[in-house]
């Protein structure tokens, strides 16, 4: 065969080798460390940051807003209105993390000194972190936090320009962030928030929301309690009320307590909106795991031995059948990375080496192959026998 001529054809390999060596000889020996792509990533996703509390204020009778700035004085990362942050709490021997929707707007994180805020309601006995935030957090306290997590935000390539937000109680927080961003001209949508509360002095962030002046933001309070003199909407947020505030093409975003999700799913079915127009924030850690279908109720009062492998190290701890693996680990002071605590984000992906677990069906966000090999998201998995797991070293 012939391409260009015998001699040229048969010397190809040595020709290209010489060319390569020559290119290197002519190259600079100065280390080129620049990676501008990684620089952008650092500004969007810097990982866990040291944060300092710079303000604590009442968000209503039963909730507080906590403001954080970056401890090192650098700029806070970008995020989308509606996203949450994960905060680490070191309480006694335990390291516990919690996700909280950011209630301040993205633009506020980047302007001036920059801050992010969360707004947390005092619990009715089931959330000692919520009470800790309301009772004990003060200006100057320091926390580690991961800012800008989750998929609950308006996406221009997917969502309608008219958004009806359905908020229940402290579920207002992601929408408060969105409302501020819209009012500042940074988010190009018309936002109507249907905001359900029990009584008017229970409305989280009411003053702040009422102060938002924008013809693209409308806040409609809906009170379920029997309050004399209330002029606004009453009852629950039903399909009728939702229809009243909808445009022909509307995206519905829902955030609130778990009971509200079950109610809303039924109401939204009456609207005939396509599936792509309905977006729920994650469900949260299941309030009572024994109430879910298929849960082995006969094991509910059992406690199991949980062997935890990290590298070649092993610990044995106790794990209650009604508490997720994450809670058992945190209680024992073993660090595990968590995000949404709803089985979605996968931060707490864990291998079950032996033994069995129950996975909360509302919160099973696993990959198919992971299921085949016994991986679980530890925030949504509950022990049903003695078991051995392997988790990353933190």
């Amino acid at each position, binding site marked *: 065969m012939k*391409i260009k001529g015998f001699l040229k054809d048969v010397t190809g390999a040595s020709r290209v080798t010489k060319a390569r060596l020559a290119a290197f000889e002519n190259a600079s*020996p100065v280390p080129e460390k620049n990676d501008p792509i990684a620089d952008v990533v650092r500004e969007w996703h810097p990982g866990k940051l040291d944060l300092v509390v710079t303000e604590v204020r009442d968000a209503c009778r039963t909730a507080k807003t906590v403001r954080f700035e970056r401890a090192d004085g650098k700029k806070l990362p970008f995020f989308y209105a509606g996203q949450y942050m994960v905060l680490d709490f070191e309480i006694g021997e335990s390291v516990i993390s919690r996700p909280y929707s950011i209630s301040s707007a993205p633009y506020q994180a980047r302007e001036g000194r920059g801050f992010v805020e969360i707004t947390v309601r005092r619990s009715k006995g089931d959330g000692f972190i919520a009470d800790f935030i309301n009772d004990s957090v003060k200006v100057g306290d320091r926390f580690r936090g991961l800012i800008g997590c989750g998929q609950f935000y308006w996406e221009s390539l997917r969502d309608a320009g008219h958004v009806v937000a359905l908020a229940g109680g402290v579920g207002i927080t992601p929408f408060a962030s969105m409302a501020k961003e819209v009012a500042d001209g940074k988010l190009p949508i018309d936002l109507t928030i249907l905001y359900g509360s029990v009584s008017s002095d229970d409305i989280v962030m009411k003053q702040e929301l009422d102060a938002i002046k924008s013809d693209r933001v409308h806040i409609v309070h809906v009170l379920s309690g029997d309050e004399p003199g209330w002029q606004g909407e009453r009852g629950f947020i039903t399909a009728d009320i939702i229809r009243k505030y909808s445009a022909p093409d509307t995206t519905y975003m829902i955030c609130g307590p778990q009971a509200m999700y079950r109610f809303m799913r039924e109401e939204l079915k009456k609207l005939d909106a396509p599936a792509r127009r309905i977006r729920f924030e994650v469900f949260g850690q299941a309030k009572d795991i024994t109430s879910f279908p298929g849960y082995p109720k006969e094991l509910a009062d059992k406690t199991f031995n949980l062997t935890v492998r990290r590298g070649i190290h092993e610990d044995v701890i106790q794990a209650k059948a009604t508490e997720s693996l994450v809670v058992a680990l945190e209680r024992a002071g073993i660090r595990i990375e968590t995000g949404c605590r709803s089985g979605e984000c996968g931060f707490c992906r864990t291998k079950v080496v032996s033994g069995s677990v129950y996975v909360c069906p509302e919160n099973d966000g696993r990959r198919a192959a992971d299921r085949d090999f016994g991986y679980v998201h530890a925030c949504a998995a509950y022990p049903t026998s003695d078991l051995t797991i392997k988790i990353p070293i933190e």
Partner: protein
Amino acid sequence: MKFYKDHYDVIVIGGALAGLSSALMLADKGKDVLVLERHNLPGGIATSFVRGGIEIEAALHEMMSIGSKDNRLKVGKFFDDMGVDIDWLKVPEAYHASFPGVEVTLHPGLERFAKEIDEVVPGTYDKVLRLLNLCNTVFDSVNELSIHPMSKAKMLIKHEAFVKTAGYTTAEVMDTFDLPQKAKDLLAPYWIYVGSGFSELPFTIYSVLMADYVGYGSYIPLKFSHEMSLKMAERAEAMGVQIEYRQQVDKILVKDGRAYGVRTARGDEIHADYVISSAYPNKVYTSMIEPASEVPEKALRMVNGRRLSLTAFSVIMILDRPAQELNIRDYSIFRGDTMDTDAHYENLAGLGPYKYLTCICHNYGNPGCTPEGTCSFSVTVLPRVDGWKTVKAEDYDEVKHRVAKQLIDDMSAYFGTNLLDHVLEVVIETPMTVNRYTNAWNGCIYGYAHTMEDHIIARLQTAEAERFIRHLEFSGAHAISGDGMGPQVTNGRKAAKNVLDTMAEEAAK
């Protein structure tokens, strides 16, 4: 608390396809291996994610070098040999080529492919088949020579086509076949899988590309590329490999010109006889070697003398209709305003509008992969890093949405269906996304460009002289075989082989 052993035979930095292939091969030979992966799952970009309850492929379009069950190619055979049992699905077509004046779907099999081109450009069957057969001959030589090296004189007799085409670009060899432009265009679409225009791309690489993909077809795992990555990791662990996730390696420890361990971001110092790095040589030689004085000047000249190849930008959607209702009719569509690969390569240096789009509808290869009544559809461009290096953090979101919208709008116009009216889920992957999850240098997924100045044959010739630090090997897209998920297995095996060979040599001394 002690999380690591005092000593390992080999530490592998990075638990993606290359690193896991190294680990499998070393474990198979009884070596004590530690894999450190910075993310919390294996695979790097060979992975999947879940949105709205639907699992979505992150990166894999189609795997090369797998072959059918009774006629495995080298990567498929390696998986079989290692006991990594993957549910492979055969991709039903090579590609649908779409450029002005041409709409045709071509299928694998050299003769069938040539025949289908002949139907579009009559009278080209013999020439096209001759070209494809030449590719196949070169491909066979590459495979054989990678196992049985031989003298140049012997090579000229036994592997004449390989030797005589080695010094030429794809354009130079293709020109000798005197094909009409349209036939050449139909032979061009796969160029994007190797990332250099035909005026630069070594014909050797083109040969391997065409012989492998067209000759044998391509495959995807049933449960996305995460199935492949996870099964490799699980098998490696079953063979005794220790894999630790969420462990980023910051430093490679070197003394007297020889690597002896690593230090992680967490602060663990771990010792081993050998280190295999999936981190780019650029990163290793500029900021990972400790002490920096152990980096020879030649290593810096080498990384500065190479050109980074392509990165990736994908907009991946779950659409709320079956594919056919949206006029999406193919697994794989390559669409361009021309099929001039050099023009495309220029276009990829910018930030769009991009002119050469690669689309995948996984449902045609994996029918049950999305819920009833929906389909998965992605549009990908593989830009050079140049344009993306100019994007500032504050503009990033705007740029990524602008580019994503261009890709969706272009394909909507092509299908005559506004895809934006059907988006159930959408994810935009950018060079920044790649960097975020894998730490790849400049977000580059393709390693170094295949050019005549950085030819694979030259890489092989100079490989020994470029092992600048003893007991430190590299595996990943930046290694000899370059980009692609299939080649990562080959790159990983090569690094493991270097380690095993060195072990044997040193034991013999």
